[in-house]
C-alpha cells in the first residue's frame, strides 16, 4: 500500500496557531501533494536532531496540488507536536507520505462525524466528496474555528452549539439518507457512534482509527487495531480508515 510513499524535505510555507494549543502547518511537498488522498496521513519529523526518535503521524487536512502544498491541523499535546508547532516559514520538515488507506470515496450523500481534532481531515475529505453534513462534538468552543462552515455542533461545556456529546446530535439523523458515513475522533467516541448507528448502516460507515506509530509504513508492528475477524489489523497499512464492521469494537 505504501509502495508509492516519498520522503520529502518539505519547505514550511505557513506555521501558526489557529486557536489555543492548535497549530496549522502548510508544507511544500509537491510529490506527496500530487498523490495524497483524504484519510491518508504523513509521518512528520519533529526535529532534524536525534530526538524524539520517531516521527509523528498527522492526517492531511488539505492539499493544493497546483501549489504543491499539503496542510495539517493538530493539537499540541507533547514533545513532538510541540516541536512541529515551533517550525517557522523557511524551515524544512521531513515528510513521509502519503501513507495508509484513505476514505473510499463513492458518489452520493456524505455524513461526517468528528470528535475534537478528528475534524482535522474533514476539509480535505469534503473537497473530494463535494460536500456533506458535518456533525462535531468538542469539549468546549476551543477549536470550533477549525470546523467546516455549516457544521452542527455539540460542546461538553455548552459554550457553543448544543450542550452534550456528538452522539446527542445523532438522534435527529436519518441514517438511510446518507450513502457514506465518515467518523473520526477519539476511540471511545467512534465506538459510541458506531454502536448508536443502525446495524444496517455498518458497512457504509468508515472510521479513521488512531494508534501509536513507530514507522507509519508497515514494518514495525506497532499499530495494532483489533480486527472483527480476530487478531489485529495494522493501522498504518490496512488503515487508518476502516469499514466499521472490520473492527472488533469490544477490544477497542
Amino acid at each position, binding site marked *: 500500500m505504501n509502495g508509492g510513499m516519498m520522503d520529502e524535505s518539505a519547505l514550511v510555507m505557513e506555521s501558526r496557531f489557529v486557536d489555543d494549543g492548535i497549530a496549522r502547518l502548510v508544507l511544500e511537498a509537491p510529490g506527496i501533494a500530487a498523490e495524497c488522498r483524504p484519510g491518508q496521513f504523513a509521518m512528520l519529523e519533529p526535529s532534524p536532531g536525534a530526538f*524524539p526518535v520517531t*516521527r509523528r503521524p498527522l492526517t492531511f487536512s488539505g492539499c493544493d496540488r497546483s501549489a504543491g502544498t499539503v496542510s495539517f491541523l493538530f493539537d499540541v499535546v507533547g514533545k513532538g507536536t510541540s516541536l512541529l508547532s515551533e517550525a517557522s516559514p523557511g524551515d524544512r520538515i521531513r515528510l513521509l507520505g502519503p501513507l495508509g488507506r484513505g476514505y473510499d470515496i463513492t458518489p452520493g450523500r456524505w455524513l461526517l462525524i468528528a470528535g475534537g481534532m478528528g475534524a482535522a481531515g474533514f476539509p480535505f475529505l469534503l473537497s473530494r466528496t463535494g460536500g456533506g453534513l458535518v456533525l462535531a462534538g468538542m469539549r468546549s468552543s476551543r477549536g470550533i474555528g477549525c470546523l467546516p462552515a455549516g457544521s452542527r455542533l455539540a460542546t461538553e461545556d455548552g459554550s457553543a452549539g448544543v450542550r452534550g456529546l456528538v452522539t446527542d446530535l445523532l438522534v435527529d439523523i436519518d441514517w438511510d439518507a446518507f450513502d457514506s458515513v465518515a467518523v473520526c475522533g477519539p476511540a471511545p467516541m467512534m465506538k459510541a457512534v458506531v454502536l448508536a448507528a443502525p446495524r444496517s448502516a455498518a458497512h457504509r460507515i468508515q472510521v479513521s482509527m488512531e494508534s501509536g506509530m513507530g514507522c507509519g*509504513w508497515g514494518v514495525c508492528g506497532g499499530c495494532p487495531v483489533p480486527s472483527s475477524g480476530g487478531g489485529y489489523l495494522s493501522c498504518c497499512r490496512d488503515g487508518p480508515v476502516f469499514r466499521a464492521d472490520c473492527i472488533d469494537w469490544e477490544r477497542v
Partner: protein
Amino acid sequence: MKAPGRPSIPASFWGIPIPGPVALASGTCGFGIELAEMNLLDDVAFVFSKAVTPEPRDGNEPPRIYDTGMGLLNSIGLANPGIEKVLSDVLPRAASIGRPLVINVAGATVEEFARTVSALEASGVHAGYEVNVSCPNVEAGGMAFGVDPSEVGRVTRAVRRETDRPFAVKLTPNGGDMVRAAQEAEAAGADAVTVCNTFLGMKIDWRTGTPVFRRGVAGYSSPALLPLVVAGVWQVSSAVGIPVIASGGVREASDVLELLSAGASLVQVGTGVLRRPSLPSEIAAGLRELLCED
C-alpha cells in the same frame, strides 16, 4: 574475528560481497519488501527479517509503541504469520528484493527453534538465520534463553543440526554474561553473534501508577545507548573468533565507524530506519565523506 582498532570497511560477510557495512535490523524492516519497492536497498548489506515463530502470533495487546522523547519502547511480542504463511506468502515476494535475506527465528522451546529452522530450509530464498534468544517482549522463550549461557549453547547446537546455512545468535544485554553467551554460541557452532537486542525498559504513567504496556517492561532502543553497545561489541569481539554483528543506537556514519573500531564486522540499523527509510544510503554517503576527509 577482527581485532579492535582502526576501522576498515568490510567487502563481504559470510562470503557474500556487500556494498558497505550497514544491515537492516530485525523487526524494523519487515522482509525488506517495502524498502525494495522504494529502491532503498542499494546500500544495504543484509536484510534481517522480522522474527518468525512456528505458529502465527497476533502479538501483544496495544499499546505496543511509546516514544519517551529520548528513546523508543516497543512491546510487539513477535507478531508474525508463522512459518507456513512465511513460506507460502512472504518469502516468494522477498525473493526479489535483491539483497541477501537473513531470517530471524524465535521459539518458546529449544525444539521450536529447531523446528522453525528445519521448516524454513524448504525455501531457497534466504542466505541464513539470526537466532533470537533475546526478545524481551514475550513471557516464555525469548530472553529467558539469552540470559543463560548454557541455554544459548543448547539452542545453538539444535539449530546447527538443522542447517548448513550460516547463522548468527542474537544476544541480550539484559542480565547474564554476554561474553560467556557468545563463547557458548561459538563453541556450539554459530557463525556470528549479534550484539545485541533491545534493553529492558519501562514507562509508568505516574498519574495512574500503572505501566504504559500490559507486560510492564518492554524493549528499549535509543541513540543514547550507543556507548553500551560499543562496550558490548568490544568485549565480545575480544573474546570470540566468529564475526560480531553490532546492533543498537546507530544514527550516523561515525557511529558505524566506532562500532567497526570496536570489532564489529557488520552494523545493523533498526529504530533509525523506522524514522528514516533512507538511513542506509545517508550513512553510506556519510561514510564516504568521513573516510575521504580523514
